[in-house]
């Protein structure tokens, strides 16, 4: 019970800070935001020249930032390997045994 109250208070504190911060952020949807810089401009203007495909999002995930996508395929691989390993290892013997025996 105490744990729940402490967690709730911590989350309320965090929430106050985060919401206060939200009011000071760059305005939502404003074309003059810091994120709309030369970075996104290059993706939009040169995508045909650079990658030769019209879908900019696909161009980013499979070419500009393909290394991230490789990492992400690795996450999927890690997840499936983990699930198979855990389910296979616990399938029959050893289940429910305690550690110190």
């Amino acid at each position: 019970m105490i744990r729940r109250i402490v967690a709730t208070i911590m989350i309320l504190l965090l929430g106050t800070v985060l919401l206060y911060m939200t009011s000071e952020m760059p305005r939502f949807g404003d074309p003059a935001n810091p994120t709309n810089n030369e970075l996104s401009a290059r993706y939009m203007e040169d995508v045909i020249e650079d990658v030769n495909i019209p879908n900019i999002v696909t161009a980013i995930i499979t070419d500009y930032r393909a290394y991230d996508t490789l990492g992400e395929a690795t996450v999927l691989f890690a997840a499936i390997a983990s699930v198979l390993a855990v389910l296979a290892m616990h399938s029959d013997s050893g289940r429910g045994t305690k550690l110190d025996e």
Partner: protein
Amino acid sequence: MNDFVLQTVTQILMPFIQVYGIFVVLNGHLSPGGGFAGGTILGASIILYALTVDVKAAEGIYPDERAEMVESASVLVFVLLGLISLMMGRNFLTNIGIFPSPETGTLLTGGFIMPVTLAIGAKVASTVITLFTHLFEEKKS
């Protein structure tokens, strides 16, 4: 589940869902979608079949050994495509300039994007099915 209507509808719908999934994968670079969305749709179609018609039959379509092969092969293809550019003396995962890229707006455009999307699609579909069958059935391996 032994509902006749459900089974029939599923069997009629299956090919359409799969064709749509393949379409989403193949057209990922021209329209919204891509390996992730399309792969999930493909995987979901098999799961739908497993749930409504027969889990055992679905496993017959996609056995464990094949799943493990596809899992490993698809990621390996990704890494090896990256290493090809390394062999050609360019940086890892360099695309244009190494891989041919025909005119804009066609299916094969964009160098290695097509094979990469296919690999991701296969990987995601396979992962979804394997996760489902293993959590559902937990066979002995």
